[in-house]
């Protein structure tokens, strides 16, 4: 009988810690936990969050975890905890597709470093999650396995609001996007199918879906977490992202993933230790910066208002809240567009059908074979970015576009440096322009246009290499999650998360009510107290 109750209102006990404690105390076994999550994955299949469900692998891992717990030798906080991984991370023996025909059927012979680290800690790999093809997009709608549906589309909170607004009970036709490109991971965490998921973040791909799905999305500082095994998009901006249901869990996972990796020379060599986040009670020494240029006309009035409320919250609790300026903000998305497409053009060159991935039947010549393979393997979005990128890299354009963008990048990075040097600890901004929109509305514009719109608050952070986290704040008038973004100084991820944790506790974001799904699963997430928790 499933006895464990987990208190999740108020987020006082980090979910992973609570579950980890339950595992240690034998209140639940890793196998039971695994089976519950697998069952939920099956029930939520319509969300299309998973591309591959690694059921056998997960159960086997659960078995081994169970043996360790019985002997009292658990590997740590993540031992026996179900996690999911975005399908652009290489997983040994498990298909890794990047939601593209180019890699359909590709089975990597190695694990990405971050995947290996999770496995070394005993985490259970539930599966590979859905994304936009090659992580290009802001909706998780452009992959070959179809779009991911936002679990909130099926939440009591959203449905009740829709009934109130006398919309027809049209169950599925107006479902909402998850945001992207790590939409599958965000949906997987949001729908309780796992406790943490890996995403990737090049321009906001972890934070954007986190905001739309009401979960925490962390983009660590560039150089803190290894990119080895993350199929690259933009080498100078990509970062593995972490999606969890609370800030403490994100900190736990970051503590495990961070650190120098000899296989990724862009990871810093400074020693990194896992950390626990203090529970801030006094924010009077904190200085929060509000970048005025982020108040754009496109920002929805609801998000604006929540942003303002958040600023007031900090101020009313004694923090110093000041307006700051990031003068080059309006050029940031343009700069990102040029640098991103240029690096993509280069990174996608490896897909030629010869050593791995899709290969067409054309054998006339190498070039003909490559061209046909790439035509068949890549979707319009990917091809479009390759062509744009190569345009900017043409000899006659290189200085005016690529090098120019690199210069603007420095100006943007310097904007942040100047603000942080003026005494600001953390910046507070919206994550997205509005709450999640229906798929039917989202697809009215093309991928490039949407990405340019939706990445507006998130991509500057990638260009500057800073850590940033999206924390769910409140529900919109439609009953949908709105998240806000905190941006920290480089390598001050711990400080950033400490502030985020304080904020999370203040706002008490409601839990998604997926009642129909939960009924059969009876108890994991009922509102009752956990008897005793402390691990440490």
């Amino acid at each position, binding site marked *: 009988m499933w006895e464990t109750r987990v208190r999740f209102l108020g987020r006082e006990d980090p979910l992973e810690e609570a579950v980890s404690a339950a595992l240690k105390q034998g209140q639940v076994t890793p196998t039971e936990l695994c089976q519950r999550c697998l069952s939920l994955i099956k029930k939520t299949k319509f969300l299309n969050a998973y591309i591959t469900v690694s059921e056998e692998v997960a159960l086997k891992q659960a078995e081994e975890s169970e043996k360790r717990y019985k002997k009292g030798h658990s590997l740590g906080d993540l031992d026996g905890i179900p996690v999911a991984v975005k399908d652009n991370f290489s997983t040994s023996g498990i298909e890794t597709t990047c939601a593209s025909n180019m890699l359909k059927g590709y*089975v990597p*012979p190695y694990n990405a470093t971050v995947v290996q680290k999770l496995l070394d800690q005993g985490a259970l790999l539930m599966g590979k999650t859905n994304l936009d093809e090659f992580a290009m997009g802001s909706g998780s709608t452009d992959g070959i396995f179809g779009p991911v549906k936002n679990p909130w589309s099926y939440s009591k909170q959203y449905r009740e609001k829709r009934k109130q607004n006398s919309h027809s009970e049209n169950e599925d036709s107006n479902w909402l996007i998850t945001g992207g490109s790590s939409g599958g991971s965000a949906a997987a965490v949001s729908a309780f199918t796992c406790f943490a998921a890996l995403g990737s973040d090049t321009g906001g791909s972890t934070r954007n879906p986190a905001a739309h799905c009401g979960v925490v999305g962390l983009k660590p500082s560039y*150089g803190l977490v290894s990119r080895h095994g993350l199929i690259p998009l933009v080498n*100078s901006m990509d970062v593995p992202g972490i999606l969890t249901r609370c800030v403490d869990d994100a900190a736990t996972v970051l503590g495990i993933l961070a650190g120098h990796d*000899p296989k990724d*020379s862009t990871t*810093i*060599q400074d020693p990194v230790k896992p950390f626990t986040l203090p529970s801030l009670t006094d924010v009077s020494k904190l200085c929060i910066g509000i970048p*005025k240029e982020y*108040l754009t*006309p*496109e*920002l*929805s009035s609801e998000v*604006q*208002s929540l*942003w*303002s409320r958040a600023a*007031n919250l900090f101020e009313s609790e004694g923090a110093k809240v000041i*307006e700051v300026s990031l003068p080059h903000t309006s*050029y940031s998305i*343009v700069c990102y*567009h040029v640098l991103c497409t240029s690096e993509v*053009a280069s990174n996608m060159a490896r897909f*030629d*059908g*010869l*050593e*791995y*991935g899709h*290969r067409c039947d054309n054998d006339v*010549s*190498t*070039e003909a074979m490559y*061209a046909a393979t*790439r*035509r068949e393997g890549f979707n319009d979005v990917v*091809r*479009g970015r*390759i*062509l*744009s990128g*190569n*345009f*900017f890299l043409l000899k006659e354009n290189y200085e005016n*576009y690529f090098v*120019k*963008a690199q*210069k*603007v*990048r*420095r*100006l943007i990075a310097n904007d942040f440096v100047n603000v942080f040097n003026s005494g600001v600890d953390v910046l507070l901004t919206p994550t997205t322009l*509005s709450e999640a929109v229906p798929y039917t509305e989202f697809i009215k*514009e*093309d991928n*490039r*246009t949407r990405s340019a*719109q939706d990445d507006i608050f998130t991509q500057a952070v990638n260009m500057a*290499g800073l850590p940033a986290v999206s924390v769910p704040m409140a529900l919109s008038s439609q009953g949908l999650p709105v998240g806000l973004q905190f941006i920290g100084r480089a390598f001050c991820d711990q400080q950033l998360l400490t502030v985020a944790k304080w904020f999370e506790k203040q706002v008490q974001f409601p839990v998604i009510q997926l009642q129909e799904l939960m009924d059969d699963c009876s108890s994991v997430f009922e509102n009752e107290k956990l008897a005793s928790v402390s691990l440490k």
Partner: protein
Amino acid sequence: MWALAVRLGLRAAARGRRGFTSKADPQGSGRVTGELIQHLERLSLVDFGSQEAVSRLEKAIAFADRLRAVNTDGVEPMESVLEDRCLYLRSDDVVEGSCAEELLQNSHRVVEEYFVAPPGNISWSKLDEKQPFSHR
């Protein structure tokens, strides 16, 4: 007071949501010539596939042209945010490898320990293959 400043800002900002598309990205300025298309397709070894894709490129270029407005005199290009640090170089010791068989398994065409490619000294010409912009 922070709240007041934001309220002022809220009033000052335009109402509603204006999409990017209404911000007049100039349509194709005719810079994407047939020659350029062929050149890019040859370099990228992917094809545009449709007129729509060409106009998307034109929009992308117009979008990128906004960078001209930024004064970057005396600014050095930034290649990496970690430019102030030394790139890690590991020592030249063999620690792993000998996995040829594993790696060869991922390829569609292999002979013994070779990846097999079609002949390489034939330049790719679109004209031989098909008309430009034909849909797949």
